């Protein structure tokens, strides 16, 4: 009997979860945020159902404020995998021109991400949605089960979660309920990087260190990705060697100064870090908009 490495165990667990969802639900979808976790999840999905393509589409809830490199990568991956890619942008957000600068990060996240996700799930009737969230990212994610049930209104009740003993998942759901499924729950950021390295999984180049134009906002380095980023009077972006540990809307995602431009150097950096990658997300700094509160309202 051969013993599995910890990455092989995690991989097997994730693949089992994905197959379980496809077997037990009617209309699953994979939420694709274009980040590294999504890249790993997509890779696992392809493995789980090979040689056929995964039997569910990819859903990208777009806010119109992602990095340009993310859009390019998303389209390339959809083409390479041959999977259907559904891009949903909250039409109300477009009408009202919701953006992180005028409306603030909380409203932008609520309208463009939370409401946008709920709209997309309702519109296409998805009853299960895979997400790439991990327990080590943030404390409210740590206590969320792998199969996270949501009411018909997409609300999450952290006090009413099902036990998942011995990795047995109760997928029975009431009418109107849906499930958010997190196959990477038990992975850590380091696991993700090691797996990307070992499996040679393509990721958005923003994860690698390079010189990029950045400005400082409240101690956070924000990349000036396009001309929509309002600069302060007289401000000139500096070119600094930075990379991203997490990717989201570019005005709300902090870069870190780093020289890690290869996967081994990123892994080495990971081994030395003692902060969560979510530290780079501006939306997580606002205590009034804590992750748990956002999740209870339907955020991923």
């Amino acid at each position, binding site marked *: 009997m051969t013993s599995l490495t910890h990455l092989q165990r995690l991989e097997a667990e994730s693949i089992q979860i994905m197959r379980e969802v496809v077997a037990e639900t009617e209309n699953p979808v994979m939420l694709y945020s274009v980040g590294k976790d999504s890249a790993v999840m997509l890779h696992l999905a392809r493995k789980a159902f090979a040689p056929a393509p995964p039997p569910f589409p990819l859903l990208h809830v777009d806010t119109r404020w992602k990095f340009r490199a993310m859009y390019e990568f998303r389209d390339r991956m959809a083409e390479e995998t041959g999977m259907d890619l559904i891009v949903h942008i909250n039409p109300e957000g477009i009408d009202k021109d919701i953006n992180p600068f005028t409306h603030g990060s909380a409203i932008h996240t609520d309208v463009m991400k939370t409401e946008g996700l709920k709209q997309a799930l309702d519109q296409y009737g998805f009853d299960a949605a895979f997400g790439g969230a991990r327990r080590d990212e943030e404390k409210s994610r740590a206590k969320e089960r792998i199969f996270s049930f949501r009411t018909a209104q997409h609300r999450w009740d952290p006090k009413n979660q099902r036990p998942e003993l011995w990795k047995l998942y109760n997928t029975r759901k009431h009418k109107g309920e849906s499930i958010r499924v997190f196959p990477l729950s038990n992975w850590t950021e380091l696991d993700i990087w090691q797996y990307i390295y070992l499996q040679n999984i393509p990721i958005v180049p923003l994860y690698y260190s390079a010189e990029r134009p950045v400005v400082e906002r409240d*101690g956070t380095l924000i990349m000036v990705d396009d*001309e929509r980023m309002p600069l302060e009077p*007289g401000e000139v972006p500096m070119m600094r060697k930075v990379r991203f540990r997490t990717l989201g809307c570019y005005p709300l995602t902090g870069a870190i100064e780093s020289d890690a431009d290869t996967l081994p150097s990123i892994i080495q950096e990971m081994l030395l870090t003692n902060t969560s990658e979510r530290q780079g997300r501006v939306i997580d700094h606002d205590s009034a908009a804590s992750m748990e509160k956002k999740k209870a309202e339907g955020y991923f």
Partner: protein
Amino acid sequence: MLNARRLEAVRLRLDGHTVAAVATRTGLSAPTVSAAWKAFRQGGWEAVPVRQRGRRPGQATSLGDREQGVLWRRLAEQPEPPRPCWSSQDLADALRAETQQEVSPRAIEHWLEAQGLKPSPLSLEGLARKRSIAGRWVRQQVQPVLEQVNKAGGAIWQGGVRVAGPATSVASLPRRYQLYLHGKRGALYTRCLPAPPKADDYLALLTRLAERGPVALIFHGADFQASPEIQRWLANHPDFHLINVPTDAL
């Protein structure tokens, strides 16, 4: 003592003694006698004594807290026109004026290096020989401009802006943003700011450089394309050639 014997050696040579005989009589080696004689023939008696080695009397052996404080304060200020930034000579002069402390420009450069404030200029000639993106950039975009500015009798500068000091974000240590220039033979001119330089800081620098005629400035570390103020200034100064170092050229 050495200089007295060198002078004596020259006198004996003038009297017609051979190099070997002079060496024997003065106790100097034959090459030293020859060197003293050569110096006399080229520069007269004044050229015969050799310069004293080591620091001059009274010159500091190290910079104390007070002197370093003066240097930091000066670096945080903008120097008087027409100087674009502080050179090591300027800093040494400022230190002498303020503390009566004699410090050589070289010692200032050592201090700048110890503080992480001594960036190296790009080796354009070396890059031009490379078959790489950087090499192509130098050959196609830099060299034609430099030739044009050289023909017009203008000045060529390199420069940049960077975060000096701790590379990682250590909250307890202050961050410094360093503006720097490299002039002829890589001479360093610099100043420090407590926050990222604004368009006014860059314009002050560019304006002072532009006063000296046509200029080519190869600059690294700022996204000038995003600054309308600087773009306007450049449009009004056609003799000023600002060449941004592309991100993939380094």
